[in-house]
């Protein structure tokens, strides 16, 4: 009888403990869209014809099948060119140039300035003559890519810009970076 009481109390306490314990957290794994076949839509923006083959090649490098509009597809890739410029100018001040920062004057050797950034201003020499300077030029490409499913629901969006000595190099860097970002975001 005593043994029976003991085992009963043990069973009761076990039941109570299991009832009071916090339930394990339920981890919700977001469902990744299964994308194996993508249709590439023609570009909006400058030089439309030049971009599409490069995007297709970049997609194929990450093992995504690119299909035509008429075929069954998992998603549509829409690209947009935000900036496509060859003559991006930067000013180079030659020689040791005194510049004014927010709190102190500094001497910089051949400083370089992007247009529009006005934080540091090269001072004119005390003679009043112009500071010797030159212009360097490069290209910049800024693109946005969107991936939507067949119903038009957005699956992924990202944008990127890159500067290079020539426009083809900048464009290639942007396309590769965006496709890589899409690949890692959607685990293609």
């Amino acid at each position: 009888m005593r043994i029976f009481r003991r085992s009963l109390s043990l069973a009761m306490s076990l039941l109570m403990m299991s009832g009071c314990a916090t339930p394990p957290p339920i981890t919700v794994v977001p469902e990744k869209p299964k994308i194996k076949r993508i249709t590439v839509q023609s570009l909006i923006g400058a030089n439309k014809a030049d971009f599409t083959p490069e995007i297709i090649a970049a997609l194929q490098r990450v093992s995504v099948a690119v299909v035509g509009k008429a075929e069954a597809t998992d998603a549509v890739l829409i690209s947009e060119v935000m900036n496509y410029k060859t003559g991006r100018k930067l000013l180079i001040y030659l020689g040791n140039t005194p510049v004014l920062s927010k709190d102190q004057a500094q001497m910089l050797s051949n400083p370089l300035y992007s247009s529009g950034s006005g934080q540091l201003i090269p001072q004119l020499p005390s003679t009043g003559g112009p500071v010797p300077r030159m212009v360097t030029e490069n290209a910049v490409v800024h693109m946005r890519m969107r991936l939507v499913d067949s119903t038009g629901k957005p699956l992924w969006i990202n944008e990127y810009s890159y500067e290079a000595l020539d426009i083809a190099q900048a464009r290639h860097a942007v396309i590769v970076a965006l496709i890589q970002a899409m690949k890692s975001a959607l685990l293609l």
Partner: protein
Amino acid sequence: MNALRRAMSLKRLGILSWLLVQGVLGAHADSTPAETAAMHYHEGLAYERLGRLDQAYTKLQLACVLQPNDAKMALALGVLALRLGKEEVAQRSLENSIIHDANSIASYYVLAMLYEKQKAWNRAIDSWNRFLELNRDDSLKIEAQKHLRNLEVAIP
């Protein structure tokens, strides 16, 4: 009458050009190589501002021959050579520029871009890092950081 006037003005122009040439030659003859180099350098910069890049290139080449250890002349020639598509001259001049001035911010920027084009990834990374250490322009700082991130992915 008009022909006579034109002839007179042409003659005047001829005399003026002759005087100018003599003045420049005379000045060059009396000056030291450093002074002559400085003269070519400033003429080169003036041509560059006028958009006469070929003449600017000739002048800057002359300046660099006379003053091979001048970092700012080498930088100017390197930048101009790059704009004219002469990549080898550009690389040589820009590298010469940082040899003689290890703090030449612009040289590191342009070299980093050039190395990226040549797919010399490690050299590009070194140049961007040095540029980041020296640069004071906020938007160019962001640009350099972005290039460094991109290069980390690009290296096979």
